[in-house]
Structures are given as structure tokens and as C-alpha cells.
């Protein structure tokens, strides 16, 4: 049990650091997915330990949301790339004060 939680924490941390440090939007996106799946792993592990299906259902929900998010997010990234020839998140910084 502890192993699952440790693994989940490591995956989440990798994802979080990736989101904060990487500039490529695709990589940032992948890191976000990594964080989501780290959460899924923790949810499933806790569900297993508690002996009910609540965590697993929540994991399914996260997957559905993640799938929808991937569709929208990739579409946005594609559009940005088409107009700017760049997928760097730091370049898309016009929406500010």
C-alpha cells in the first residue's frame, strides 16, 4: 500500500515539476496527464484498501474528464501552433493586464 502512494507521489511530483519547468505546450500537457494519472493511481489504491468502489468510480470520472480535456487542449495547442509556428507556453502570454 505504501508503495502505491509513494509511486503516486513521485509521479505527481514529476508531473508538477514538468508543468512548471517545461516550455513546450505538448510536454506540459503530458505532464498534466501524468499528474492526473498519479491521482488515479492513488484513488484506485485507496479504493482497494477500503474495499469499496468509490475510488475506482472517481478514477473513471477523472479519465473521462481527462479525455475531454485532451481533446480541447490539443485543439487549442494546434491552433496556437498554426498561427504562431510555436508551441511554447511562454510565447502565449498576451492575455494579461
Amino acid at each position, binding site marked *: 500500500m505504501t508503495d502505491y502512494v509513494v509511486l503516486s507521489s513521485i509521479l505527481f511530483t514529476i508531473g*508538477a515539476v514538468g*508543468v*512548471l*519547468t517545461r*516550455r513546450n505546450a505538448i510536454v*506540459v500537457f503530458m505532464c498534466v496527464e501524468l499528474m492526473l494519472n498519479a491521482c488515479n493511481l492513488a484513488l484506485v489504491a485507496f479504493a482497494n484498501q477500503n474495499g469499496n468502489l468509490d475510488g475506482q468510480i472517481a478514477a473513471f470520472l477523472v479519465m473521462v474528464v481527462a479525455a475531454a480535456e485532451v481533446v480541447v487542449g490539443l485543439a487549442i495547442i494546434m491552433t496556437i501552433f498554426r498561427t504562431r509556428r510555436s508551441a511554447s*507556453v*511562454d510565447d*502565449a*502570454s*498576451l*492575455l*494579461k*493586464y
Partner: protein
Amino acid sequence: MFVLAEGAAPVVHPAAASGVFSLLWLVIALPMLGAVVLLVGGPLAKGRLDRNGHRIGVALPVLAFVISLAMFIQLLGRSSDNRQLSQHLYTWFEAGGLKVGADLLYDPLSALFLLLITGVGSLIHIYSVGYMASDERRRRFFGYLNLFIAAMVTLVLAANYFGVFLGWEGVGLASYLLIGFWQYKHSAAAAAKKAFILNRVGDIGMAMGVSLFFVTFGTTDFTTISANANKVSEGTMTALGLLLLLAACGKSAQVPLQSWLLDAMEGPTPVSALIHAATMVTAGVYLIVRSNFIFDYAPHARTAVMIVAVVTLLWGAIIGCANDDIKKVLAGSTMSQIGYMMLGAGIGPAGYPFAIFHLLNHGFFKADMFLGAGSVMHGMNDDVNMRHYGVLRRAMPVTFLTFAMGYLAIIGFPGFSGFWSKDRIIEEALTQSWWAGVLAIVGAGITGFYMTRLMFMTFFTDRRWAEGVHPHESPPVMTVPLIVLAALSVLGGVMLIGNWIVNFLEPVTGQIAHENPPLSSLAISAIVVAIVAVGVAAAWYFVGRVEVPREAPADVSWPVTAARAELYGNEINDELVGKPVGALVAGSTYFDRYAVDGFVEGTASAVGGSGLVLRRLQTGFVRSYALSLLAGAILVVAALLAVNLA
């Protein structure tokens, strides 16, 4: 001093009107109809009324005069204790305990006023046909004049103070519209506003008086009030009297609300003659005489009336002495003559009939002289400066002769109307209190001076006409009313034959035992005539025998400077009212701008300013947002852990 016997103030106890008297309402309705047709129907008639509307405007007041005359003759046929008639038209409004009917009262006082208003009014309407012939807005002018007649008749026919108030405001409106008739002239528009605002001050007195009548008597009917007047405390009566005096001061241009009348001369001259000489400005005198059942029980209020009257009669006369504008001299003279009427009204029952007598005579001779001044202006290309006149007696003989009749009447030349009425007022004033009588005699002397000065500068001395001015006599439509009014000015004294007017007005003003004046009537008349002669001689000395300069000399003594500045009436108003109110307004504006607005706008700019600072957080860098999200999440988790583990 006369002392009123207990319950001696006459009680209004009218009988229901029948026969020709049931036409009473028509005297209001006919001119009102004219006003509605001319003002509302005019634009609908597509110009037809612009050309012919004045016929309607003249016919309806004349018809009202015919009805008034018929009623007057009928009234003379009745016995003197049977001369009060009332007509109930409908219930005007009802609110709580207050029930106000549209009631009319026809008694000797309103009968005389009806004749004056519709009679002199009709003559002035006829004159206006000629005077306003070339004015393209003549239809509207006649509409306003008819509106004025309707309102003024309402004022004198109303049987309760609400009705009087209605007419009071109506004549104020008509006066405003007519002073500002040539509203494209800035001075006329300003004068109209000034008249309206100063009248508002007096109207406050009227409105508060009506309210106090209701509070004290539970009604505003003359009948009930006069029947219960002896049961009310003297303090209340004095308050009522002073409120009515304030109202009268506004409408009748008495000091301290006098300053609008001279500016009111901006209106067309027939308006000055009708409204600002013969009728409307005498409404204050009517109000006081009509409210005799109040003033008879309020001796202090009567003294206040006398003081106001004496101050005004000298004030107006002094203004008249130095002005070069012929209409303003006549306006100052009107103010002064109304002062005499107010003096008569302030004396009490002994003076009421003579106040009304002088009011009627003044209506004749002052309308005559104003219309004469209009005729002069007509011939002089609307120049009003008397320094540009001279020897007009040759160019305008009819105007000159009719004006001279009015002149002799106003200075009190023996035999003319003003002689009889002014002398009686002076005599009663001397009987009542010597100071009022002496000052009234002084006023008569000044009247002799300024009227003679006007006569000399206009009709005698040398020719000082401007280039290209060719004075000519006015058309008959203007001179015939002048002749009629001049005849009335000469013959007005017949009303005193056999003390007729005193006896006729007795049901209204009450009966008092005659008191002997300190001197015989003949001696008083002789003194007054002598003083007037001094005034006339002074005018000849200063104006008649010397060459009158075309420009007013600048180096003059301080009394002349003061009189030219209308005795600083405007400046006094400005200092006492204008500037304090102006300071109050400035203070309020300052408070609003810096305290109220400061708070509101300060809050807004504080929020805006903090927004300016905080928006720097929105850098646009996704990764810094992500960092703050992470930090927030860690903070939440840490907080949860701290709560759960503690």
C-alpha cells in the same frame, strides 16, 4: 383713533343670485373662452385667427362688460342691505374636513371691480388693436390679455380665499407671460422672471394665509370667516393680517417687494396700462379691503399696512423724480399711488371706501396716461427716453390733451378725480395718525413735481427728437379709448357726490361714526393744493424754464443718483437676499462637490487604484499561474493536515 364697537365688522351674508345675476359666471367664462379659442384654437385655425383673432379678443371682454354693467344697474335697484349675492357653481374639491366650492360673490365691492376690470380692460383691448397692429403675434397677445381678464375677474368674484388664490396665481401667470411677451429681448425675459419670482415671495404669504384661515376657521369662505371673526384671538388675527399684507406687498409692488414693477415696463404698453397700473397691481388693495373682517380685529396689522403704504408712496414718488424713461416714471407713480390706496386701506373702515375710490380713479387716469405714453412711443419709434421728446403737444394734440387730463387728475388739481380721492385719504390719515397724514401730503407734493417734470419734458420745452423721427398722432382706434379714459379721469369725482361711494360700499366695509379731522376739510385741501403747487413750481424751475440736455447729466447730487438707482432697491435685495442665498448655494455646491462627491469618488478611486496594483499579478505566463495554483493547493493540503493532525 377710532375704536371698533364689539362685533361691528360687517358679516358677509349673501342671498342666492337670480335673474340677471345668474349670468355672473359668464363674466369669467367669456374672457376665458376667448383665451382658449385664441391660444389653443389659433394654431388649429391655420392663420385665420392670426388675422382676425383680435376681433374675438375684443368682443368677449366687451360682452363681459355689458353683463357687468347690467348687473350693476340691477344691483343699484336693490336696497343697500340686500346687495350681496352668491352663486354656487359646483364643488371644486373636497379633502378631509376641507370642502371648497366654486362659489362666486357679487357685492358692491366686486361690482365696482368688475366694472373697472372689464370696462378699462375693454378700452385697452380696443387700443391694443391699433398698438399691436404690426406685431405678427397679435393673436397670442389678445389670448394672454383675455386670460388676464378671466383670472382677475376670478380674483374679485371668488367667495372664498381658495378662489382668490386661484385668481391671484392666474393674474401672476398672465403678468409673467405679458411682461415677457417680446421674449427675444433679453431684458424682457429677465424682467418677466424677476416679476414672477418676487411675486412668489408674496404668494408664500397668501398660501400661508389660506392655510391659517383653514386651521383657524375650518373653512375659507368669506361668509363663515366674517361671522366668526370676533371669536378669534387678536394674535391670530394679526398673523393673518400680516400674511395678507405680505401677499399684497408682492402683488401690489409695495416696499420691500417693489422692485419688479419698474422692470415690468418691458412689456407692451397696453399691458403696463391694464395689468401694471389699472387692475392687477391693485389686487393687494382689494385683498385688504375684502379682508376687512380680519383687519378690523387686528390693529397692529393695520399699523403695519400704514407703515408699508407711507414708505411706498414716498419711495415710488422719489423714484419717479429722476427717471428719464417715461414708462418707468409712470411705474414709480403707480407704486406711489397704490401706496395711497394701501394707506386708505390701512386706516380701517373709515379709509376703505376712499381706498377703493382712489383705486377706481387711479385705474382711469393711470390707464389714460400709460396709453398716452404708448401713443407717444408709437409716434417716436418706440423711444422711451423723455430726453428725446419735447414739444409733442403740437405733433400729437389728442394724446397731449388726454394726457393732460390724467396729469391734472393725478396731481390732484381741484375738481379732477384724483383731487377728491387723494384728499379724502389724506384727511382720514390725518385723523388717524398725524405722521401718516403729513408724509402723505409730502408725497402729494413730490407727485406734483415728477408729473410736471414728465409733462414738461414730453410735451413742452424744446425739440430734442432723434434723427429721422417724425412724431404723428395715433389712429382713432387708439385715441378714442384715450378720450374715454380722459373723460373718466375728469369726472371720477362724481362718485363722491352725496357720499355715494361710501354709502354704496357700506355693506362691505362697515359703518363707522364720522370723526372730525384735526383741521377742516377745506383747510386740508388748501394745504395739499399749496404743497402740490410748490412741487409743480419746482418742476418748472428745474426742468421747464431751462434747456433739457439730450444726455442725462452725470455730475448730479446724491439724492438724484439714489433716485436714478431706484433707491437701491435692487442692491438691497441683492445684499439682503441675493448674496446670502448665493453664499448658501455656493456652500452647498462646495459641500456636494468636495464632501459628498469626495466620499463617493474617493471610494471609487481607491477601488480602482488597488485594482491597478493588483492587476500586475496577471502576467500572462501560464507557468507562473501554475506555480500559484500549486502553492495554493499545497496551502490547502497543509491547512487540512494541520486541522486533522492537531
